């Protein structure tokens, strides 16, 4: 059985919360019923069928076709199955998701993977600010799962992140791993924005390139071949060619500990060629 496909007729004028359309929630709902489900659009409701052409299929393989950049909270709270977005996704992609897979072929807006607890998110293009972070007022960001961004990530990636792994193949914005509590962020691109690790408490930020503006509150702990990096690269085997390439050599890194301005015990590991 092929997947359940929702093809966008035309982009909406206002932002729409799409969290009601997940494999969990569409289980056992037929195509006609899905088309009549209400979505909140500003101060009025629209039916799914007004915005999308619904092609019946397995909701465990849910596909959104078209530019969904105005649709927020895609895959929020999902626990299983897969969502594919053949286009861009809006803000808060995969918010608090616990399991399953989301694949966005285009870009994702701000706050993707915020408070995510498990599962996997792959973003083919760029991710916005606060990837894997916490909503304002929340104390803990992403606390499990894996996020892979093929393009670039915005500012404050991993803000208050608690656990899990984020891989950015492209460049990283400003203040990456700000206020990070634990977890692992790998940035494989050549450009790292200013002040990575700002107010970082614990966790690992692994970089292949140095930031032009590094914080003075990270202490240089020297070069080391860290055994745990072998485990990390093995756990991430096959995810991205650059990491697989790194796994062929001893994992030699320069370790910077901080952020000492907040008594942090986090680390920035700068990969050495």
């Amino acid at each position, binding site marked *: 059985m092929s997947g359940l496909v929702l093809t966008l007729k035309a982009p909406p004028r206002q932002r729409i919360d799409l969290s009601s359309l997940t494999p969990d929630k569409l289980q056992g709902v037929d195509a006609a019923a899905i088309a009549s489900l209400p979505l909140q659009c500003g101060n009025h409701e629209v039916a799914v069928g007004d915005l999308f052409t619904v092609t019946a299929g397995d909701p465990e393989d849910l596909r959104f076709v078209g530019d969904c950049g105005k649709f927020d909270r895609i895959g929020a709270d999902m626990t299983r199955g897969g969502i594919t977005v053949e286009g861009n996704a809006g803000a808060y992609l995969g918010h608090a998701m616990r399991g399953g897979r989301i694949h966005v072929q285009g870009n994702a807006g701000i706050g993707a993977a915020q408070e995510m607890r498990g599962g996997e998110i792959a973003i083919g293009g760029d991710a916005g600010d606060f990837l894997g972070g916490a909503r304002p007022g929340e104390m803990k960001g992403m606390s*499990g799962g894996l996020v892979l961004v093929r393009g670039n990530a915005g500012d404050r990636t991993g803000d208050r992140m608690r656990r899990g792994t984020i891989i950015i193949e492209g460049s990283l914005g400003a203040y990456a791993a700000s206020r990070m509590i*634990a977890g*692992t962020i790998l940035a494989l691109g050549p450009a790292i924005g200013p002040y990575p690790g700002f107010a970082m408490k614990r966790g*690992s930020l692994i970089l292949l390139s140095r930031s032009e503006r590094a914080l003075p509150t990270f202490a240089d702990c020297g070069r080391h071949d*860290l055994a*745990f990096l*072998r*485990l990390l690269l*093995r*756990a991430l085997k096959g995810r991205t060619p650059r990491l697989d390439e790194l796994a062929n050599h001893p994992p030699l890194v320069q370790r910077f500990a901080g952020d000492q301005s907040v008594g942090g015990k986090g680390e920035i590991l700068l990969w050495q060629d």
Partner: protein
Amino acid sequence: MIINGVEIEDTFAEAFGMTATRLLITADSPEWAATAAASLTGFATSVIACGCEAGIERPLGADETPDGRPGLAVLIFGMSAKDLQKQLRDRVGQCVLTCAGTACFAGIHDGAPLKLGGALRYFGDGHQISKRLGERRYWRIPVMDGEFVCDDTVGTTKAVGGGNILILGASRPAVLAAAEAAVAAMRAVPEVILPFPGGIVRSGSKVGSKYKGLIASTNDAYCPTLKGETRTALSAEVAAVLEIVIDGLTADAVRAATRAGIAAACAHGAANGVLKISAGNYGGKLGKFHFHLREVMA
């Protein structure tokens, strides 16, 4: 039953239920992994006084270990999960954490977990780092040559301890040669260890003693020098007896090792002074696993 002129006595080995776990120890070289494993499994011949029974199961290639380095699989058996927990903490803490370049991983993931890194992490004095990768949680503990990496927990399994065979022969060299051959064959069997020195024990014991407070004492029925003065189990021509004790993760593993050991000892044959294969038991009242030699060799 007679194999190659060697009599297989109609008796059985009596073994006990134990709790066991497997650790994978890796290092920069196979030699250093072996050094750590030898230290970890040292003084672990019998639960009577060592707290646990431990041994090396097999060497591991770099492609079989979590961190891609050479290593060894080690099995540790205890009378209870509580005993095993204490032994794990102390032995890994003193013998693996201390050993240059090593890492220690769980070789069993199912069953009630015991703390591994979870108990050793405090050595990091607040500088220890926890990393969760997939389903596994690891600890990175800073040490003077870098970091000691180990799993947070290790699983346990119900296991079988105290399987055994006795090799009776016409001379000490003849019995030793047969026992060495048996050990070599038994070590090739997966999921078992032979906890005694070189896999062989010469001081077989019986339950109790004439001395108060001693729970085990020499098995005088099998001591050749006492043949005339005690109720002996030895015939006139037997001059030496050696025992091989087997601990295994399953009864099938113990049975396979028993069979491999007896076959190898019998291959030496009566012509080389191997006279009889027997086994130790307590009348079947103490242990729940019975390995009848003739059934095993059938």
